[in-house]
């Protein structure tokens, strides 16, 4: 903070606002993108934004609160678990469709 720049924001707020922007960016992408894999990516960006809000707002003058840090680590692990499952579903769906294309009698419903 020893900068000549006029400091409008504390470090914590800076990162937290960045997180808020990431959430909005990811949300916009989630709505406008069609491909599920890209939507999954967007969801991960939203998640990262949320984590950054948690971290930024837990930033004290001398240390960052370990409590939100722990929540973020838990959140990251949950996110990767869900992303892995989502990616597997997307790939499997593409495979079933590819297999069903020649003989369209598979009982899989087409996507809406």
């Amino acid at each position, binding site marked *: 903070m020893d900068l000549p720049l006029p400091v409008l924001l504390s470090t914590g707020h800076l990162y*937290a606002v960045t997180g808020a922007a990431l959430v909005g960016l990811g949300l916009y*992408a989630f709505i406008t993108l069609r491909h599920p894999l890209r939507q999954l990516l967007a969801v991960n960006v939203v998640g990262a934004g949320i984590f950054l809000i948690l971290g930024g707002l837990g930033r004290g003058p001398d240390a960052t609160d370990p409590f939100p840090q722990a929540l973020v680590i838990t959140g990251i*692990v949950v996110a990767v678990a869900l992303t*892995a499952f989502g990616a597997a579903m997307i*790939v499997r769906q593409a495979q079933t469709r590819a297999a069903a294309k020649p003989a369209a009698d598979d009982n899989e419903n087409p996507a809406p």
Partner: protein
Amino acid sequence: MTFAFDLILCLMILGTAAIALFVRDALAAIAFFIAFGNLMGLAWLGLDAVNVALAEIAIGAGVTGVLLILARARLLALGDAATSTGSPLLLRLGALAACAGFVVLLAAAVLSIPPESGLDRVVAPLMPGLGIENRVTGVLLAFRAYDTLLESFVLLGALVAVWSLAPAGAWPGRPADPGMADAPMRRVAGTFGQLLLPVALVMAAYLVWAGSDLPGGAFQAGTVLAGGLLVAGMGGTIGLPSSDQPLLRAALVLGPVVFLAIGLAGVAAGGLLVYPAGLAKALIVTIEYTLFLSIGVTLALLVAGPPMPGASDPDPEGKG
């Protein structure tokens, strides 16, 4: 670190995120996503949260990135390039307005909250009782150990969920080959894997050990192990395991079950997840070591995907 650095970092984060989200080509998008993840790691360093930085780089950027690359490769093999296609202008404009409004609202809410490390004051006096230094590890494995316990089962459950997608006739079986199509690459990965796996093990073990007092811990270490296993698996150093191998199953459930057992044993000392005085550190380290092993194996298998027919053949004739 200075405010200017933080500011530039934040702008870069937003830039890479935007590119990752909106670039047409999927591979470029994922590449930028990995870059984004690493920048996020830097941001966490900027926030003095080294534990999170490690987790973000290892899991958020690393594992997620590999996952997405692999998924994209498998889609490409089926003729799906996962390019971003435009949606109707009206939808985009509406979404833009809504999201912009939402960001303003969210930012206003965020700015109305003063940043402070309120609970640090609560955590600090409790740490000596645990006998470890790393406060984040303290929160993860003592004060909020219940969250972590459930979370370890979420990870296990995700693997089960991925396995449930195995097509008819592929069960029990091995995941599809991660798809290093050309032989030279495979050889590189093979050599690298032989080297990397033991290094990864040592490094991971150290990370767990360090996690008690310095930044690190089971999840970060597990990721390192998973990385080693994956590279080794790609290169053929170790075969991809069949989903029904008892040893594999044991490795998967070991960490969560030990955690659960220690938690229940705490009932003797007064309640769920109560660590008897003096034993706290020993128990936490036990949980971390078993958990790291299981997390490593689980993450590696999560990346590899569900068992597929014909995948039991180790011959590298991928579909690519």
